[in-house]
């Protein structure tokens, strides 16, 4: 790939890469509480604060609920705010996630994806963020530490865009990415600063009848999100849905801009396709699993098998047009879920992908693979077995068992 601007190669684990991106992103307030496997992010960032390398106010809060409350409050005053969490910490934030998106506060949060208790497990799966699917947050999942770094920088631009104004969570797989050292190409401070800029505010009409920038400011008082009952609540929720729709375009546009500067692009920003043009069989997955999947697809292609992969980089808003068009030639599709929806018809990604393909004329036969819960390793051999099953489905034109568990002792 062509390198457009000068960059520095650093050896960083995913968490460190996130902290470094936040350091370069001119963040005003970080309010956070430690939790494995996210801890390194705020630990590293607090070092930057202690060393005077950033001008950020670091708030040591007493819980994740408070971390989100403080981030929201800072953001509402016009500050750029960041926090990070995982697993039980994200679950504790649940209430405040809705308040933050409802107040249209563009907070950016890194989630080092981790399983939820009980039983206690500190390793990576997507149970935590999938459980927050409907909280009104944009959700992006990184494939590697490089993408975690790049996505955090992009996330501020996406969140703060005046047509979006929604909080963004960037997921990086616990331990697999958060604690694994990689070579990460980092941009120069001035390039990140120029790319992100400062927060801009569109005007709103206040109770005093004044048109003023949308932020809490004692000279131009306004009240955000206090109460809206039967007559207005519904309208505010519809606005959030529109902002999500707008985000699809904004994410694509910012991925494009970032690509011009850095030489790195993640598909169109929403989905990344791998050998999908002529693929008859394909899988769809999120996060770091895609890295292993790509090597499996490479091997299958060497053998002349028309296999492909679609990596869903953005899960909320769900890019259904992009998914439909990317899968238009696929005859047999496996959807990978690293979380469960107990009692549901398969995992959350499966439910959504299957549903969005319902309206297409020649939709593929679809099978769900639930895998990797609690950080269970998923080997290339196991992933290859998915494509072997897809070849059987392609022949039979029928799915015998639509919901399957990969790597589970039966």
């Amino acid at each position, binding site marked *: 790939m062509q390198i457009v601007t000068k960059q520095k190669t650093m050896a960083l684990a995913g968490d460190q890469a996130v902290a470094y991106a936040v350091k370069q992103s001119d963040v005003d307030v970080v309010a956070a509480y430690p939790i494995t496997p996210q801890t390194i992010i705020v630990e590293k960032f607090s070092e930057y604060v202690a060393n005077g390398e950033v001008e950020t106010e670091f708030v040591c809060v007493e819980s994740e609920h408070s971390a989100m409350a403080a981030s929201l409050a800072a953001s509402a005053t016009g500050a750029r705010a960041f926090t990070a969490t995982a697993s039980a910490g994200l679950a504790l934030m649940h209430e405040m996630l809705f308040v933050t998106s*409802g*107040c*249209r*506060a563009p907070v950016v949060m890194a989630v080092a994806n981790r399983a939820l208790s009980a039983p206690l497990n500190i390793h990576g799966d997507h149970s935590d963020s999938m459980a927050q699917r409907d909280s009104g947050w944009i959700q992006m999942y990184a494939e590697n530490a490089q993408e975690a770094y790049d996505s955090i920088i992009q996330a501020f631009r996406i969140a703060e865009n005046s047509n979006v*104004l929604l909080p963004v969570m960037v997921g990086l797989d616990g331990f697999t990415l958060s604690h694994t050292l990689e070579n990460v190409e980092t941009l120069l401070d001035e390039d990140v600063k120029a790319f992100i800029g400062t927060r801009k505010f569109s005007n*709103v*009409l*206040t*109770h*005093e009848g004044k048109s003023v920038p*949308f932020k809490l400011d004692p000279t131009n008082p*306004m*009240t*955000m*999100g*206090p*109460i*809206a009952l*039967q*007559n*207005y609540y*519904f*309208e*505010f929720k*519809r*606005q959030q849905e*529109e902002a999500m729709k707008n985000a699809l375009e904004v994410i694509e546009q910012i991925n494009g801009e970032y690509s011009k500067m850095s030489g790195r692009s993640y598909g169109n920003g929403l989905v990344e396709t791998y050998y999908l043009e002529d693929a008859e069989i394909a899988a769809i997955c999120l996060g770091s699993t895609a890295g292993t999947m790509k090597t499996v697809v490479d091997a299958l292609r060497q053998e002349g098998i028309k296999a492909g992969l679609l990596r869903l980089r953005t899960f909320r808003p769900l890019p259904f047009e992009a998914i439909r068009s990317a899968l238009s030639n696929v005859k047999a599709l496996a959807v990978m879920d690293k979380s469960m929806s107990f009692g549901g018809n398969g995992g959350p990604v499966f439910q959504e992908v299957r549903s969005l393909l319902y309206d297409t004329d020649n939709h593929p036969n679809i099978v769900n693979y639930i895998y990797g819960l609690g950080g269970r390793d998923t080997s290339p051999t196991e992933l290859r077995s998915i494509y072997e099953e897809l070849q059987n489905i392609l022949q039979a034109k029928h799915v015998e068992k639509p919901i399957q568990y990969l790597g589970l002792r039966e």
Partner: protein
Amino acid sequence: MTNQEKTWKEIAPAGVCSKSSTSFLTGDWKTYTPVRDLEKCTRCLLCALFCPDGAILWHPEKGDISFDNSFCKGCGICANQCPTNAITMKLAQE
């Protein structure tokens, strides 16, 4: 709902208030209303300090207080705090 209410495209985001809170007369929520015994009341103003709605007004020119019934929700905190039991809560009249 009335036809005067705005669509989702017309309103500010995030529930930003279009009216000041002073135009929402929350006093009509009340079941009980405070009644003061002027003999017992020492004008110590503890009630005004504790009122969560700022509905007890101090009039320096009269050296006295009054209840603002447009905003008093009838919670009874004033009656509970009054050191001389000068305030009692009575059923509000329609």
